[in-house]
């Protein structure tokens, strides 16, 4: 389970950023995320929607313990992301569309590296690795260097790295960004599998089609603030426009007023 209470993040502006914002902007900080409250439950997929720069990545990075909130709290499986960061990370898998891999390692070496960092014992690791490699059909290229793999193969390695330690919570930050349709579809399928397995899944996107395919719960973030939160079913019932996309734009525009 993921629970956030009044989660906020302020960034100090660099001289260059201040210059870019112009004279009208007087402050030296910017609120990337302000007072965000939501709960993501096990066995459900929570979609975080927002335009580019809305605060999705910052929110997810705070949940993944990479950034420290400037105010508010967030808990993952009951552990605080600031004071119990190590416990949080043990239970967390994090995948982004821009996630990189080590090109000079083989797929097997890379997966082993992350398993070791998660403190997995040899037998558990081997069992889990074989299970995932079977499911994603990875044996053929397991001992090939990652630099020589296709985009689809690389994505499979990335997924394996994310879930090798069988995390209770999986965070996907725009996981299909820049991927071809086939690879993107495999990620969607994986997220569905996680839901079936009872994991808490949170994913950010601005692609409405993915929301339709996956969401149980959703939240829309705009300029760092949540402007909608509810179940996907409720969202559909309250819709006053023809499509999800139009509804999203309507909500964001109203929030911006």
């Amino acid at each position: 389970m993921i629970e956030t209470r009044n989660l906020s993040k302020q960034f100090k502006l660099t001289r260059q950023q201040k210059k870019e914002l112009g004279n009208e902007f007087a402050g030296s900080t910017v609120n990337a995320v302000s007072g965000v409250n939501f709960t993501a439950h096990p066995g459900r997929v929570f979609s975080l929607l927002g335009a580019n720069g809305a605060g999705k990545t910052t929110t997810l990075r705070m949940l993944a313990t990479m950034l420290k909130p400037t105010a508010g709290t967030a808990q993952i499986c009951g552990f605080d992301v600031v004071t119990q960061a190590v416990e949080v990370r043990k239970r967390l898998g994090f995948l982004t569309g821009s996630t990189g891999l080590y090109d000079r390692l083989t797929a097997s070496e890379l997966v082993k590296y992350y398993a070791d960092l998660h403190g997995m014992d040899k037998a558990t690791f081997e069992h889990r690795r074989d299970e995932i490699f079977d499911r994603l059909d990875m044996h053929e290229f397991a001992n090939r260097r990652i630099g020589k793999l296709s985009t689809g193969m690389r994505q499979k390695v990335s997924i394996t790295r994310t879930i090798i330690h069988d995390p209770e919570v999986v965070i996907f930050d725009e996981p299909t960004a820049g991927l071809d349709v086939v690879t993107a579809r495999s990620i969607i399928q994986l997220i569905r599998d996680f839901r079936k397995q009872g994991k808490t899944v949170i994913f950010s996107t601005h692609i409405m089609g993915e929301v339709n395919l996956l969401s149980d719960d959703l939240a829309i973030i705009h300029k760092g603030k949540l402007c909608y939160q509810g179940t996907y079913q409720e969202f559909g019932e309250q819709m006053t426009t023809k499509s999800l996309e139009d509804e999203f734009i309507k909500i964001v525009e109203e929030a911006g007023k």
Partner: protein
Amino acid sequence: MKAFFIIFKKEAVDTLRDRRTLITMIVLPLVIFPLIIGIVTRVSESQEGKAKLKELKVAIVSVEKLPQFEKIILQEKDMVLVGSVDEDSVRSYIKAETLDGAFVFSNRFSKRLVALKPGRLKFYFRSAEGQNIKKERMLKVVDKFEEQLLKERFVKLNLSETTAETINLTEVDIATTQERLGKAIGGFLPYIFVIFCFLGSMYPAIDLGAGEKERGTIETLLTTPVDRFVILLGKFGVVVLTGISSAIIALVGLYLGIRQAGEIPPDVAEVLASVLQPQTIVLLISLLLPLTMFFAGILLSMSMYAKTFKEAQSLITPVNLLIIVPVAVGLIPGVELNSVTALIPILNVSLSTREIVAGTMDFALLTEVYASLVLIAGLSLFSASRLFVKESVIFRG
């Protein structure tokens, strides 16, 4: 500790598979010295050989006949006497390489000798690189001539040849060969230490810092349950290892270069043997370790700060030039290791190396050097660790 070794092992494997690192860490330091020494030796040998074998054309310009001098020249191997040249044309003949040298005797040469005064003789030659051997060969005939004239003078004056000697000086140099040559050779070693320590550390540091950010792997690493300082330590360990390895490989390369250059002069061989003593090697590596740690901390800090591999390279390249300055200062005559210079990073390594190789190291000063190096190594690691936890640095963009 386990996490440190996991990270260290992975980073080491990853680094050793990087072609750029392998070239700067192993190939370059191993090959550069044998190559330089080989080329320099061959070229100078061939130039010396040519100069030694070349037939020298010399001329005597004199109003009187000097059969004794002519005879000496004619007795010389590979030296021919060119006839009738006047002093005015000597310069143009030498420039045109028709002549290699000319001996111009004053008009009163013999008369001055008879009056027991020194005879005046001008020697024309053209000094240029690689021409010293020619000059020496030509001046040898003057030495022989002078020797004969002196003998004649002593006989004429009925004096013993030792009459001209007022002091019979015997120099007793208490410095060992190691001390004499060690300081010269030891002055050169820090160049290798410092440059290759830095070069060897540079690419791994850039790859493990900025490279990790550019690839997008830093985020995945930071979401593992490993303390950030331990992650940094793993990276730091690999950078130190590559830096030290590079410097040691460069020293091996230098040794191989000297060996392949042919016969080593006994004096140099003696110093080399002393450098290769386990005690000296241990002392040198013990200097190298904190120095490389210092570099690793600085390089990782800069690399972590940079957004991309390219930015890191452009930040680090000027530092490469900066670190040479203290090494160069260490070579200035009169700059010695003392309680002040022992505290100046890099310069203290340069000066200590000289003293260690010469076998004249003051161990109180060495302790001061270690203290200074360990302190700055610690500070540079501390600065890297501060940057590694700074969100504005890790997610700078």
